């Protein structure tokens, strides 16, 4: 029993339960939904958002924010498309995507962590900068009509209807999760987000940690850009506009606190699945896709409000418990020890 209770204390567990509930409700509304391929499709379509969400999760955990990832995705997608048009190899595309993403990350990281500019403002500027670069790179035209191997891999299924890209993404999520929870350096991210001053005192370089977080965020956004190009085979200049907000929402749904120092990668990945499958679920429930944003908004607000209220309640409860144990007769000694 205790073990089950502990399991529910894991923050991403509640988002998983929420996702399953969503599937169940949709299944009750329309029995046709509950087939293997429908559910696996929900996961497959989440590939891009999952990549963006785990990238930005690193940054959010250190207590900062990055609103330039949508633009980074657009830029790398456009570059991938241009390389594909000129017949470049996939290795070259991935290399460029990762390099561009990392460069954006270094830029953001230095601005935010070294110069101490508030992250929202700085990445906002980067966002405009990269959006402009997209126009320069593409001449303001839509990049399309590219085929070759990249188009072949776009919807390639690996096994049991799981696409190659989603399988690789899951692998990345697993690696990120292990890095974050099992390695020494990985734990720095949460430590810095939780208490930057304290982290500094015990010898963790806040600057370096934040810089690495931004670089990882940029790299993941770059890879997401590659996936975008490969999947849609058409990159408009406004590609990725607003994706940053969806990725942030995914993180919040996955139980990552925007003030930093709380959350994990699995939660972010589940949150991304929730965000991207809403439109699909609505079709089965029988609502037009017009309801998409409304439902997303209501869900987001309800979840964060409930989360914050329960947290406050649990803090008050523990406070009261401490008070009671101190004032209870005969417990004075125990209270002192505690």
């Amino acid at each position: 029993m205790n073990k089950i209770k502990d399991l529910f204390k894991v923050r991403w567990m509640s988002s998983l339960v929420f996702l399953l509930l969503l599937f169940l409700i949709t299944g009750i509304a329309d029995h046709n939904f509950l087939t293997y391929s429908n559910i696996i499709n929900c996961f497959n379509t989440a590939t891009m958002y999952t990549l963006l969400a785990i990238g930005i999760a690193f940054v959010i955990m250190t207590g900062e924010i990055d609103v330039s990832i949508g633009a980074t995705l657009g830029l790398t997608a456009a570059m991938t498309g241009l390389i594909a048009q000129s017949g470049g190899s996939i290795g070259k595309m991935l290399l460029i995507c990762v390099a561009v993403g990392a460069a954006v990350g270094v830029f953001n990281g230095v601005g935010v962590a070294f110069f101490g500019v508030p992250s929202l403002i700085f990445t906002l500027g980067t966002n405009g900068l990269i959006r402009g670069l997209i126009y320069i790179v593409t001449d303001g035209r839509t990049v399309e009509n590219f085929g070759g191997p990249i188009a072949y891999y776009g919807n390639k299924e690996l096994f049991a209807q799981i696409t190659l890209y989603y399988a690789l993404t899951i692998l990345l999520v697993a690696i990120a999760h292990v890095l974050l929870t099992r390695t020494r350096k990985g734990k720095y991210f949460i430590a810095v987000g939780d208490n930057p001053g304290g982290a500094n005192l015990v010898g963790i370089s806040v600057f370096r940690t934040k810089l690495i977080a931004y670089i990882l965020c940029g790299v993941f956004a770059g890879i997401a850009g590659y996936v975008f190009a490969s999947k849609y085979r058409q990159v408009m200049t406004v590609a990725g506009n607003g994706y940053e907000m969806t990725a942030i929402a995914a993180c919040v749904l996955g139980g990552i606190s925007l003030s930093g120092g709380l959350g994990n990668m699995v939660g972010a990945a589940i949150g991304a699945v929730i965000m991207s499958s809403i439109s699909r679920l609505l079709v089965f429930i029988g609502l037009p896709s017009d309801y998409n944003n409304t439902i997303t908004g209501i869900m987001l607000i309800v979840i964060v409000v409930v989360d914050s209220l329960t947290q406050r309640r649990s803090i008050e409860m523990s406070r009261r418990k401490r008070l009671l144990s101190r004032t209870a007769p005969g417990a004075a000694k125990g209270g002192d020890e505690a």
Partner: protein
Amino acid sequence: MKALKKLFRRWEFFLVIFLVLEFVVFGSANPKFLRVNSIMTSIVNYISVCIISLFVTLVMITGGIDIQAASIIGLTSIIEGVLWSDAGLNIWVAVVIAIVAAAVCGALSGFFVAYCGVQPMVVTLGGSFLYSGLALLISGMSATPAYQGISGFPAKEGKTFVDFRFLGKGELLGIPMQIWIYLVLIVLCVWILHRTKYGERLYLIGVNQQAAEYSGINTRLVIMSTYVLSAVSAALAGTLLTSNMNSAKYNHGSGYTLAIITAVVLGGTLNTGGKGSILGTVLASLIICILRYGLPLCFGVSTQNLDLPVGIILVLVVLGREIAGQHMISSLFKKRGSAR
């Protein structure tokens, strides 16, 4: 001398210089730039951002942030359109209802921020999804297809605009109505922020909410009210946009979120709260507005590619300010050290 030094240190001073520089550079590059009418038109085109950023400044001074205002533009626009064309209400009644609806939206988000303690960025992010979604749903109630937009608002008599369209198209003493409204709002905001007790409380809450609470301020109510104010200003902007473009659409203003935040931040308002001024926000929004008007006209920059210069300026400005600030602090320490 000391007063002069103080003036130089003020952020607004740099903004004024920047604005003047813009006029000099653009004006010398292309004399057409200096035509008053086109400058006013460029401000009118950017009026939504100008108006909303005024009130988002108030939100950010308390340490919050509002990224839902842009979605409220579309919401009010479509409410006005549907109530007027499909429900057959008088347009002014529709406007009042739309503004009240926006105030309710702002109050809802403000309530969650102030009374439930949820981070403002998350709540208003949810709000931006919710309100833009509601706008789309409401546009579905209309007989007009959503992508087309409801048009044909009253009224035009000959060549002059009267009634509702006067708001967006009319002129008073040769200056567009929208700019008059903007000026009135600036005065109102300056008065609220710098001349009333309410404004003082905003700063106090931004500096230290707990201290403000202990000194007897109802901080929660004050914080909530700032979100209501910014939502109402967004409703106003939505009304002006509807009147100016003669069309009510659910996605009006959908791309303005980052522009609004940029204007506020460039104006010197700290997003951690406690610092900022209306004058700075006004100057910053004018700088961006003139930049967006001048660059295509004088240097042939594509109108699609205006994000780049704005982004560069934002990055350079905040970096420069941060470096200058650090330099000032370090020189302060040096002075103290040498005195010992």
